[in-house]
């Protein structure tokens, strides 16, 4: 089952997409977008894994004694977690404004544009 972690990543991503398409609440839709993002983290970390590997931190590990996992993808996932959280906050701020101006958070009821 060498491809199972990759398939899990794809499945998480598609589950988020399904939620986005069928969402009836904008807050729920923002949550689904975070699920899509989580799929990319699973993929990144799966790509970087090495059998028997440990964290690439050498403060208490002598270099060369143990295999370490790929630090590049870990750094990518790490920055994206924080940046993704603030982008989620921005989207939620948009939802707050939509709820105030239109009185609804159902995307299906936001049919008409209002100036």
């Amino acid at each position, binding site marked *: 089952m*060498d*491809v*199972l*972690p*990759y*398939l899990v990543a*794809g499945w998480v*991503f*598609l589950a988020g*997409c*399904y939620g986005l*398409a*069928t969402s009836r609440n904008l807050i729920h839709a923002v949550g689904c977008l975070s699920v899509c993002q989580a799929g990319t983290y699973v993929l990144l970390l*799966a*790509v*970087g*894994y*090495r*059998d028997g590997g440990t*964290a*690439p*931190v*050498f*403060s208490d590990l002598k*270099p060369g004694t143990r*295999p*370490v*996992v*790929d*630090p*590049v*993808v*870990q*750094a990518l996932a*790490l*920055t*994206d*977690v*924080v*940046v993704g*959280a*603030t*982008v989620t*906050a*921005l989207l*939620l*701020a*948009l939802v*707050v*404004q939509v709820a*105030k101006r239109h009185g609804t958070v159902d995307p299906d009821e936001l049919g008409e544009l209002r100036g």
Partner: protein
Amino acid sequence: MNRRMRLCLVALGGAGLAALFTAAFLRLPAFGGDRHPYGDRAVRAALHRHTANTIASVNFDLRAFDTLGETSILFASVLGCVVLLRQARDEHRARPEPADVAPPVRRYALLVLPVAVLTGLYVVAHGQLSPGGGFQGGVVTATALHLLYLGADYHALERVRPLGAYEAGDALAVSAYVVTGLAAVLAGTAFLANTLLPYGTFNTLSSGGTVPLLNAAVGMEVACAVVVLLARFLDQAVEIEEDSGK
């Protein structure tokens, strides 16, 4: 478009995407394999530059320019939130009533608060040595401050949180990151190149050249950004009210 038709479209697109995913995944290098050319080179470069935490080295040295982009996204989205969640013309501010807090909640929140803030600062400071760094430690520090909201009330939180100072701190931290990069240019190398400072002794706080500086700048930015974000959302929930009867 009705819901049934939309669902059919999603199923069609999703099935196509799933098929493409599977085809791509089958040709990826096997999970847990031993071949990580970039990872091996990153580990070598980090050890060469005396940074014990390779991930900090990747973020603040090898890919420091990329992290500048990430912090800019962070800064821009905080700016967007501040603009979106401002007080509108048809709203007013109401002073929130002090609420009673259960004594055990108050006691433990105030007890944990200094420990949590200190933990956050520790995680930032040791970013180049142990797991952690500016991104994680900043979030811990900022959320720890909000224990005051749980333990006391909103008014107490507002007193330890002069929002203007945090907004300025956010901008200042991003500028500090850019200035550190420009300092390398002035010294005659590339933007954000880690050749300015001595690499120091391996596994000590001052090791890694400019890594600790950039790490601290990002820690400050993330902490300020999270404080400002949470303040804006709390304002909406607690203080800002719509004028009724208009």
